[in-house]
């Protein structure tokens, strides 16, 4: 099984490299990447060896800029936090420090995680390292870029709709969002608490398992975290018994006749999926079509928008500039808060918050917000019924490769709304969900997504690892030994 982390650890053990050499090389690559992609909000000038002898000793990594890091600027890529220096550490950051991992910088993201493009950070666009005319995807845009470019073997992201898995697909890497509650969110800036997850971006399934084994666990500081001490992801990958597996795809999404003007990219993505289905069958993984209520599928994007905007409206209400954030001169407190929020939030955030305000108005609550929560239940219950027959759901992550930064060059069609938004199902149900690269379409990587039932992370990772081995994808920017 390929693993950049294991390779680095073997190199350390055999004295082929020293941590200092690795750090210098990493910082050099990081600066080049910053020039090319704008991946970092904060990039350190130098880093020091870790004295912790943990499972990730002197393994370098990057952290999305919405995790609290004591004494280190943390902006969530927003002007409202452009000068904010936290006074406590997020549990994920603390666990990585305890394991000996070495942070090199904080990565650029869509402001507060409310975007899927990597184009809304206060420090500017994030560019896809494989083609700088393309989006890196979001919201964990910088984290995806630095892993794809080979700057670091892993980065931490957060995922509320597909914010780890979509950028992973666009940048040709692995993006894994474990079961809701598996990783503590203490110190992660909340966007939509009922759907926010911590996730990891790596270049292999094995590395994703390694990192999550380190950062998962119950945390007294996060009441939604769960005990997973009996779950050992790496061990389960290593000792996988390669039993036959059964996956399903959603027929209504994979039926090309449902798309009025299917693009070449879509046809090629579907063709890759078909090839994978055939290959997988030979290796004991059957993939069959299942029907899903089209009304529910069509409602996924709206349900996601409604619930996340409503929750964000509440979660971002602490941005007042009274305790933190740049303060504006004003005659009274209300005027001061209003000036801060008006000046600090980007237009996109304002629009999202207004949608949240709209669906939470007394006269709209039942019609939109409560009904969206009902649709969420129907989708999750349907998925759980399917998971009683199958090991997981498998689908392409999007129509094709990364979208253009210049939006006018992208296909926009209502037909694509379900395909482009289906990964939010993983957040509705808290299901473990992983994206792996599946091949190339018109020279750009495309991803495949596997989602399983709650707490079945070991099974989901085993399936992903078997498919990864079968696909034998090679990252164009980092040639790694298989």
């Amino acid at each position: 099984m390929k693993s950049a982390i294991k390779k680095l650890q073997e190199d350390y053990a055999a004295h082929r490299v020293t941590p200092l050499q690795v750090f210098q090389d990493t910082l050099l690559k990081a600066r080049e990447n910053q020039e090319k992609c704008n991946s970092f909000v904060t990039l350190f000038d130098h880093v020091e060896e870790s004295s912790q002898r943990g499972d990730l000793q002197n393994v370098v990594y990057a952290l999305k800029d919405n995790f609290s890091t004591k004494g280190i600027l943390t902006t969530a890529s927003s002007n409202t936090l452009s000068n904010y220096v936290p006074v406590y550490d997020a549990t994920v950051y603390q666990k990585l420090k305890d394991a000996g991992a070495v942070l090199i910088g904080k990565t650029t993201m869509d402001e507060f995680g409310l975007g899927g493009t990597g184009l809304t950070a206060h420090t500017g666009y994030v560019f896809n390292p494989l083609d700088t005319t393309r989006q890196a995807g979001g919201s964990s845009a910088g984290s995806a870029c630095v892993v794809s470019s080979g700057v670091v073997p892993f980065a931490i992201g957060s995922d509320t709709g597909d914010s780890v898995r979509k950028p992973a697909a666009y940048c040709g890497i692995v993006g894994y969002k474990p079961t809701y509650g598996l990783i503590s969110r203490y110190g992660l800036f909340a966007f939509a608490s009922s759907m926010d997850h911590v996730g990891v971006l790596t270049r292999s399934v094995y590395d994703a398992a390694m990192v999550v084994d380190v950062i998962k666990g119950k945390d007294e500081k996060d009441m939604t975290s769960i005990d997973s001490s009996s779950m050992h992801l790496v061990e389960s990958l290593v000792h996988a018994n390669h039993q036959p597996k059964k996956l399903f795809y959603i027929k209504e999404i994979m039926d090309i006749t449902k798309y009025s003007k299917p693009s070449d990219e879509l046809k090629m993505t579907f063709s890759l999926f078909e090839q994978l289905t055939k290959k997988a069958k030979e290796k004991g993984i059957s993939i069959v079509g299942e029907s899903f209520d089209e009304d529910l599928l069509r409602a996924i994007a709206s349900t996601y928008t409604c619930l996340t905007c409503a929750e964000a409206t509440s979660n971002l209400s602490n941005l007042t500039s009274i305790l933190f954030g740049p303060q504006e001169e004003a005659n009274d407190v209300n005027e001061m808060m209003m000036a801060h929020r008006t000046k600090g939030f980007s237009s996109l955030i304002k629009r999202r918050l207004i949608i949240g305000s709209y669906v939470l108005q007394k006269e709209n609550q039942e019609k939109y917000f409560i009904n969206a929560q009902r649709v969420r239940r129907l989708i999750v219950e349907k998925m759980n019924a399917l998971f009683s027959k199958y090991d997981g759901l498998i689908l392409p992550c999007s129509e094709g490769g990364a979208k253009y930064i210049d939006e006018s060059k992208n296909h926009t069609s209502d037909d694509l709304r379900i395909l482009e938004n289906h990964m939010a199902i993983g957040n509705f149900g808290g299901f473990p969900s992983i994206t792996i690269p599946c091949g190339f379409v018109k020279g750009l990587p495309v991803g495949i997504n596997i989602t399983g039932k709650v707490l079945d992370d070991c099974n989901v990772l085993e399936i992903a690892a078997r498919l990864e081995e079968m696909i034998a994808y090679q990252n164009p920017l980092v040639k790694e030994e298989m």
Partner: protein
Amino acid sequence: MNFTKELVDDFALKLLIGLREEENQMVLDEFEEIEHHMDLICQIPNISSVEPMTHPPVLFDETLREDDFVEEMPVEDVLCNAAHKNLSSVIVPKVVKE
């Protein structure tokens, strides 16, 4: 619903957000479409009989922690990002007017 500039400004004001003319127009341009998509939620048959789901159905440990004394963050740390402060207080523009 008939969306107007005033209505959009009212939604924004409730969030203590001001909109520039072009931002207000952007919201107005988007809202008809947003409402159309939102309506898809209401078109699910018998939706009102379904119990709302507020969070993923994961079994959380709901045991309350012991009511023990714990050391909390020093006040000076809590206030270190505040723009204006005096000892353990934050200074804001005067609330009570003459």
